């Protein structure tokens, strides 16, 4: 078996539509300093750095170079440093990168950092459109919203999900974000308010879609020996993985289901020996960039049968006080600094396990799930964290 690895420190920045108060390296430094403080470590304790971002939202290409010294002075110290980028899953891929650095046996304490300043671009959808193949498909303006609206219209068609269901998901997440000082959107939203919002791409309204945010996140991974010395509250990695679905979404037009995520969940649950996720998980931080996705993700992750995701929301199963709270942080729906968002999901799951989630803490969390999607709904990352050593 591979080395056991735990998360021993998490650092978040306040996210907003534009962090005009800081330069880019200052924003990254804010996250890194918070993670070091959380783990009570110094820069010299870090053996290697993994950095994630999705070029070019920030208007700076290969922005990790500009930010290299904000990462515990990695440049000046000639540290091992690796940039990973996988679109929306970047933050999740960055966490996996940190994890494998430790399991390799080459490093004991590894800093992972992810950042994005979506607020520096004047049109995020225009950047997202450059992800679309320029030969066949880019001309028609595909971006995240239009792709995801297809998920919603299919789910409505095949399973009878409604705009009210989406509005309930929005209201739940907005309420959670009010407990999260790092969240971008912090305002009260009722189901009635949500249903009056402007239609962006049918059936998605403004409140069904995440904002564009500036923000950064840092997480420190440590080996078993070092974790025990660093913290009394490690969050152990119990299962993890990534799946890569094919690019041409025309090959997989069953948008009402997310079978790529189902396949990955089965692999990761097997590794973590989880049979009934609804009962065995205590909290889940899902990448719900859009309300409909939280519904489909709950289904694909086996919290309920396919087509029954909206029912979970209606019954309050995924509320803060429900059987399996989903996104106590307010989720991606309320905060989305794209390349950093995946690492925030893993970080929020870790904070829940560590008992450090303050006002958004779910009581008595033992096992938490972090989920990330990206790449025209083709990629997923999952990480299961646990209070007990696996």
């Amino acid at each position: 078996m591979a080395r056991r690895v735990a998360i021993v420190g998490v650092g978040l920045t306040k996210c907003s539509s534009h962090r005009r108060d800081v330069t880019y390296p200052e924003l990254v430094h804010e996250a890194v300093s918070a993670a070091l403080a959380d783990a009570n470590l110094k820069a010299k304790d870090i053996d290697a750095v993994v950095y994630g971002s999705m070029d070019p939202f920030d208007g700076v290409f290969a922005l990790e170079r500009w930010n290299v010294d904000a990462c515990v002075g990695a440049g000046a110290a000639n540290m091992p440093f690796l940039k990973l980028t996988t679109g929306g899953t970047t933050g999740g891929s960055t966490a996996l990168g940190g994890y494998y650095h430790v399991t390799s046996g080459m490093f004991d304490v590894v800093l992972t950092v992810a950042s994005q300043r979506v607020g520096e671009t004047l049109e995020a959808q225009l950047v997202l459109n450059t992800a679309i193949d320029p030969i066949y498909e880019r001309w028609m303006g595909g971006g995240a919203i239009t792709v995801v609206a297809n998920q919603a219209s299919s789910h409505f068609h095949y399973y009878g999900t409604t705009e009210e269901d989406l509005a309930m998901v929005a209201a739940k997440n907005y309420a959670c974000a009010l407990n999260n000082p790092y969240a971008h959107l912090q305002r009260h939203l009722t189901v009635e308010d949500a249903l009056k919002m402007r239609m962006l791409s049918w059936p998605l309204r403004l409140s069904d879609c995440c904002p564009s945010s500036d923000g950064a996140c840092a997480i420190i991974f440590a080996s078993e020996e070092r974790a025990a010395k660093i913290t009394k509250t490690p969050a152990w990695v119990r299962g993890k993985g990534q799946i890569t679905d094919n690019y041409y979404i025309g090959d997989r037009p069953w948008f009402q289901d997310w079978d790529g995520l189902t396949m990955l969940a089965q692999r990761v649950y097997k590794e973590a020996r989880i049979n009934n996720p609804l009962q065995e998980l205590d909290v889940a931080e899902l990448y719900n960039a859009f309300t409909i996705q939280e519904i489909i993700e709950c289904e694909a992750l086996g919290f309920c049968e396919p087509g029954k995701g909206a029912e979970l929301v209606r019954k309050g199963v995924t509320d803060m006080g429900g059987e399996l709270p989903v996104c106590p942080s307010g989720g991606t729906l309320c905060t989305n600094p794209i390349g950093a968002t995946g690492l925030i999901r893993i970080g929020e799951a870790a904070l829940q396990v560590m008992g450090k989630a303050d006002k958004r803490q779910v009581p008595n969390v033992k096992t938490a799930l972090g989920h990330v999607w990206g790449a025209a709904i083709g990629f997923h990352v999952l990480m299961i964290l646990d209070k007990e050593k696996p």
Partner: protein
Amino acid sequence: MTQEEEILIMPGAWNLPFRHTAGRFASRFFRELRDNKKIFGVRCPECRRVLLPPRPFCERCFASIDEWVEVGNQGTLELFTICYVPFLGLPPPPIATIMVKLDGADGCLSHILGGIDLSDVDKAPELVKIGMRVEAVWRDERKGEIGDIEYFRPVKSSRRA
């Protein structure tokens, strides 16, 4: 009250030129659109699926592809949304983006739906339905690009095959 410090914003813009290679697969596909108003897919020699858009290999079988198959000008709408907000540099709203499974193809082609008034936000979803039959509308002046098909429109029921 302390005076708030002035924070400056530096303007920036990327205008990076690229020349994207279409290669022999996309080139032939676009030539057929331009010269013959025909839509071609490719068939994987192993799983036998007819794939759109044409590509040099099948991701699932990891096999090289060299068989071309003409598919229909008509097909079934499998997915859609109707976009109501303008995005910088992209076509003006409202536009319906669709995935259409052309007759004889196993995968869907990404395109847009036209020939329908989408301006009423409440009524439009009643006019566009998953499973409806659609057909290609060709431009008169074709340039050898995906836009040579101006849009897909609903097939009138009397003309349904």
